[in-house]
Structures are given as structure tokens and as C-alpha cells.
């Protein structure tokens, strides 16, 4: 078995990299694939809490590369599925604790026993990002429809191109259909025109994400979640299925609301 390494990155922080990593990793595992998610944001560990696994961590990625533990000891099994494992970031170290070759060696080892190795990149374009991007077979860039996020995404795309990481795709996160309709938020097409890389999926803004994160249960586990549905579609595309884009613009409103909105413009 030779697994595929997918790196999730963004340039700008706070656009939903770790949330995306958690949802896609969980989704692929629930679809029957063997998945390991690796948090490479050394010093700013977060993926463990988003997945609700923070109490199970004994060893982390720095312990593995420093050979302070065996790989198996640092693989934390998910509570919900036997198919998903997490390797946590170290919380008391910084990005200089690992180098690119160590991460490449680690992913090569993980490829032997997993179908998907999902690397959660730190924000920025420094060494931590490079460590996360160099082992990638495929890179997913997460952005929101905001100028700073799109600009930083473009910078990241440029760096990936110059490193010959050409298997790239885009997730546009936190699209607010009401703002897009009013012309106060760039639409998916606007963002695609600016960035011109293939679109992997769109995720609508979902205020429930805050509470899902609070309890350590990614939205893909919640049947009625809008963002969970969007992540499920993306998982299907990663598995090679042709799934139509979610229609997030569809919104039913009553007559009164329509009248109020008309005058609010």
C-alpha cells in the first residue's frame, strides 16, 4: 500500500485549515479509508482539540522525529472510527524542532500503512509551511472570500509552483450567501477568477462550527450541518467521485423579509 500525502495550507491564519483537516480526515476515515492526520503547527497544537482527542496524547510529532518514542506510540486512535489516527504537534517546542527531511521520512513511513496522510500546515510561508508542503503529493489551499486571505493564498500558490507542487486545488471557506447576494462578499467565481487554480469545494459560513469545535466534534459528524454537507462532498471528490457543487446561494425567505431586505439595500 502506498498512501497519498495531502497538505492543507492557506498562507493566512484563521481561515479554517485545521477545521478543514479535521473534517476531511474524519470524512475519509468514515468512508472506509485508513487515514492519519498530522498536526505540523509545532508549538501551536490545535487539531487535537478540534478532533476532541486532546486527553489521549502522550507522544507527539517531535518525539517521533527525535526517536524518543516509536511511531506507533504517537499514533492516537480516534474515538469514533478505527480508521483515523492523529499525530499531534508538540506544544512546548517551536518549528525549528523538525526539519523537512524528517517530515519526508515520517510521511514515507506512514505511506506504508495509511491510504491518506493529511498534513495540517501552519500559517505563513516560513519553514513550518515548507516542512508541510515538501512531502505533499497534493496540496489543498484553503481561503475565505476576503482580500487578505486571497492575496496570501496567491502567494502560497506561487511558492508551490516554484517548488513544482502542481497538484493544487482550492477550498473556498466561509462563504456567506447573504453577503454575496448583496454584492458585499466576493463570490466563488470572483475568487476563482483571481486565483485560477482548480476548485475542490465551497463551504458555506456556518455559525455552528464554533459549538462543534467547543465539544470536539467536527461538523461532518452532524447530519444537519451545512458545512458538514459541504465537507462530505469534498471527501467524495477526494475519493474520485464527481459530485456537483453545493448550491449555497439557495435560501428561502418570507415575503416580509424580502420587503425588509429590499428597503435595506
Amino acid at each position: 500500500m502506498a498512501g497519498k500525502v495531502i497538505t492543507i495550507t492557506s498562507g493566512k491564519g484563521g481561515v479554517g485549515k485545521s477545521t478543514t483537516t479535521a473534517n476531511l480526515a474524519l470524512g475519509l476515515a468514515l468512508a472506509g479509508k485508513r487515514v492519519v492526520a498530522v498536526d505540523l503547527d509545532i508549538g501551536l497544537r490545535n487539531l487535537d482539540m478540534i478532533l476532541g482527542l486532546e486527553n489521549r496524547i502522550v507522544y507527539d510529532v517531535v518525539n517521533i522525529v527525535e526517536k524518543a518514542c516509536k511511531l506507533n506510540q504517537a499514533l492516537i486512535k480516534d474515538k469514533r472510527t478505527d480508521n483515523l489516527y492523529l499525530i499531534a504537534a508538540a506544544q512546548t517546542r517551536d518549528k525549528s524542532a523538525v526539519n523537512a527531511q524528517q517530515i519526508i521520512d515520517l510521511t514515507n513511513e506512514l505511506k506504508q500503512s495509511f491510504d491518506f496522510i493529511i498534513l495540517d500546515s501552519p500559517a505563513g510561508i516560513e519553514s513550518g509551511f515548507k516542512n508541510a508542503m515538501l512531502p505533499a503529493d497534493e496540496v489543498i489551499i484553503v481561503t475565505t472570500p476576503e482580500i487578505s486571505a486571497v492575496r496570501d493564498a496567491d502567494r502560497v500558490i506561487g511558492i508551490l509552483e516554484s517548488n513544482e507542487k502542481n497538484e493544487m486545488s482550492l477550498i473556498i471557506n466561509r462563504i456567506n450567501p447573504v453577503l454575496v447576494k448583496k454584492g458585499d462578499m466576493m463570490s466563488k467565481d470572483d475568487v476563482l477568477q483571481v486565483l485560477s487554480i482548480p476548485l475542490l469545494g465551497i463551504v458555506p459560513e456556518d455559525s455552528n462550527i464554533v459549538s462543534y469545535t467547543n465539544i470536539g466534534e467536527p461538523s461532518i459528524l452532524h447530519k444537519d450541518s451545512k458545512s458538514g454537507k459541504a465537507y462530505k462532498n469534498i471527501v467524495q471528490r477526494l475519493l474520485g467521485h464527481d459530485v456537483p457543487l453545493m448550491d449555497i446561494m439557495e435560501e428561502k425567505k418570507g415575503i416580509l423579509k424580502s420587503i425588509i431586505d429590499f428597503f435595506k439595500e
Partner: protein
Amino acid sequence: MWLDFFKKKKKKSAQEAKERLQIILAHERVANKAPFLDDMRKDIIEVIKKYVDIDPKSINVVLQKDESVEVLEINIPIK
């Protein structure tokens, strides 16, 4: 027309965001991909200034990619 009275006209901010991004990214892509471009531009200005009167500010250097061909476009308006 009376509708415009009720609906205050304002430029859609998303459109403005897209336009601003397209302009800044066109610049940044060139700067990051071909960092020598700024020096080259200065050299070109020096050479041309020897022969004709030009306004250095009006010179426009663009690196464009069309499908498979990359084109370096230099526009030099002569006074």
C-alpha cells in the same frame, strides 16, 4: 427612476475587492517570479534615456502567461 430614490446607489464592495486584488496580484506575481525585473527595468530606462526623452514613471513592465507561452511586455511611451 423613482426606485433609485429608495435604493441608495453604491458601488458593490465585492467588485471593488476583486479589482483591487487583480491589480496588486499582477504586480506581486511578477515581483516574486522574476525578482530581477526591477533591476532590469532600471537598466532599460538608463539605456533608453540616452537616446530619447522618456518619463520613467510611465514605463510599464508586465510578465504575462498565456497558456504555455510567457511574454515579457515592456511599454515605453515616448514624450
